[in-house]
């Protein structure tokens, strides 16, 4: 500081400032490169995942082509060596959509409760508890599903549903074990409810108070405010949230593998066993028999990747394209 007064010192100060400027320029560039590099790395990993999985599936793709998607034969032993993902694809879609059918209305109701009905103190307790449901590991949920939920489903829910709604082909004869597409769907429902309800709560909170008050002032009841103002202005976001939940349900491997019973039949009867793409991979990949078997499992993974990424991209596209202009969306 004091040396800046003398000519010699000022030259040193200039040099020091020069150095600092150069250092800053270097530091700025370095930080930018590191940050951008991390972002690029993320994208690269995604591309690499898609490439590796399709590459490893190539033998199965060459052998079975697109017929793999519709064929229902899955015979991994040496003498047959025939694979088709038809029943797996069917099981994946059936269990996930049933879970969504069950979970989305409940989750949206929870979102409405938290955003419109609950007093602030209640919301502060209920919201974190619902989110904790998402923190329960899927393997523990599946384990609970095997030992507690499945016997209950078998002894109570299946007979009751069959007796009352048995005319719908979804609810057929009760089976001997509780392992079924239905039980898997229930587990998936539990997993997707916190996801959908958290997003839809934020959406509903973003609807401007004035619009709702306006509707109330015109004499609308609480439900009519929700039906007429809150839901229409957030519909696209709610659909996007449901798709996110669907994506999660489609890709869940462990909990489903534990309770679905690894069946290979295509049946709309929810009480029969079934299997999904993800569960089949988790079950058979560690003990795969032949090269073609492994390649077929990769083919399943590729299908799962396409469906899962599509669900996510559509959700994110809807979220962007139709996002509610008045509120702040994340």
């Amino acid at each position, binding site marked *: 500081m004091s040396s800046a007064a003398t000519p010699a010192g000022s030259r040193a100060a200039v040099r020091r400032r020069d150095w600092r400027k150069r250092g*800053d320029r270097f530091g700025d560039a370095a930080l930018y490169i590191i940050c951008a590099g991390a972002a690029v790395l993320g994208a690269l990993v995604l591309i*690499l995942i898609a490439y*590796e999985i399709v590459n490893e599936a190539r033998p199965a793709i060459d052998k079975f082509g697109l017929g793999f998607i519709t064929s229902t034969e899955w015979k991994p032993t040496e003498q047959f060596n025939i694979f088709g993902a038809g029943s797996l694809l069917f099981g994946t879609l059936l269990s996930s959509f049933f879970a969504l059918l069950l979970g989305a209305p409940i989750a949206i109701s929870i979102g409405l409760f938290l955003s419109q009905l609950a007093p602030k103190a209640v919301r502060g307790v209920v919201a974190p508890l*619902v989110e904790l449901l998402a923190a329960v590991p899927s393997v523990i949920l599946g384990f609970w599903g095997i030992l*507690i939920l499945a016997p209950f489903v078998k002894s109570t829910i299946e007979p009751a549903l069959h007796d009352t709604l048995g005319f719908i082909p979804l609810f057929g004869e009760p089976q001997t074990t509780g392992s079924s597409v239905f039980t898997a769907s229930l587990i998936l429902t539990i997993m997707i409810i916190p996801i959908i309800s958290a997003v839809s709560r934020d959406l509903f909170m973003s609807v401007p108070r004035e619009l709702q008050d306006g509707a109330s002032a015109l004499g609308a009841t*609480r439900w009519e405010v929700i039906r007429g103002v809150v839901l229409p202005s957030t519909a696209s976001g709610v659909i996007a949230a449901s798709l996110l939940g669907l994506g999660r349900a489609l*890709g869940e491997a*462990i909990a489903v593998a534990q309770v679905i019973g690894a069946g290979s039949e295509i049946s709309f009867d929810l009480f029969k066993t079934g299997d999904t793409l993800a569960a089949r991979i988790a079950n058979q990949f560690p003990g795969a028999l032949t090269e073609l078997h492994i390649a077929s499992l990769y083919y399943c993974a590729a299908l799962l990747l396409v469906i899962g990424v599509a669900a996510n991209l559509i959700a994110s596209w809807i979220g962007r394209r139709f996002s509610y202009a008045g509120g702040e969306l994340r």
Partner: protein
Amino acid sequence: MSGSSDPAGFGGKPQAYDPAAPLTPTGNLRRRQIFSKVTEYMATIAALGAIAVLVIVVFAVVRHGADAISWDFIIKGAPEGVAPALVGSAIIVAIATLIATPLGVLIALYLNQYAGRRAAGFVSLTMDVMNGLPAIIIGIFIFTFMVKKQGTLAIGQAGWIGGVALSIIMVPLIARGTQGVLRLIPKSQSEAADALGVARWRTVLSVILPSALGGILTVTILSIARAAGETAPLLLLTSNGDISRVVLNPLEALASGPVRIYTLSEEANPEGFTEAWGLSLLFISFILFASMGARALLARSKRKTSS
């Protein structure tokens, strides 16, 4: 009640106006209000139902797991205890955290500080897709990429490879969470640094990151809680770890809690079930306490920054 006697006179006989009659809704309005109330009750029941499920699951785990828990259960290897699985999980998750936290924070910094609108849109899209990626896909990818090239399934397994797979699950969580934390930091802070002529990288290191540190920590804890229970990738990458002795070397296959629970749940063996309940109890209590604590911290720091 006079409310049901249709005082306004629609439909019925005209009646004399009675100013003393109570203002109770009738007819259509009454129906609308009842319908509204019913929907309110249904929404409340839905919320209570979700909490009930959480309570039922946690209660079942606590009730069955409590039988298994003892000091030996925690500190010994098989057959008495599960120490190798606990230590293995800790090592795998620690490796995942060491990889994922810097990457996630850097990506959040890129989004927050450098990216233009299009770049930000693209990067957050990749994070969304990565977040939605099924865990089993990540497992199968890392298997192809790192295990298969070293030989068959049994040989190439290693704990650190499991850690790499879990880090892919954690990165988008940390990036998204940190981005939220960075957004809460008042712009005036970095503007003050800019006005003093401080270089961007110094601002980031000495102003932005220090004030975001608490938030980043809680975000990291939340994603650790998520990764600790993840099973699918570990099942392919480090499933045949030794369960009878504690292994500390991450280059070997490590036992882990979730994989052990999964293996035991697939065997119809009552003693195995007891062990799995005990492990579940240890994991669920760690995960629930970690995420509750982190959430409480996050809420507090949000209140502090916004006020």
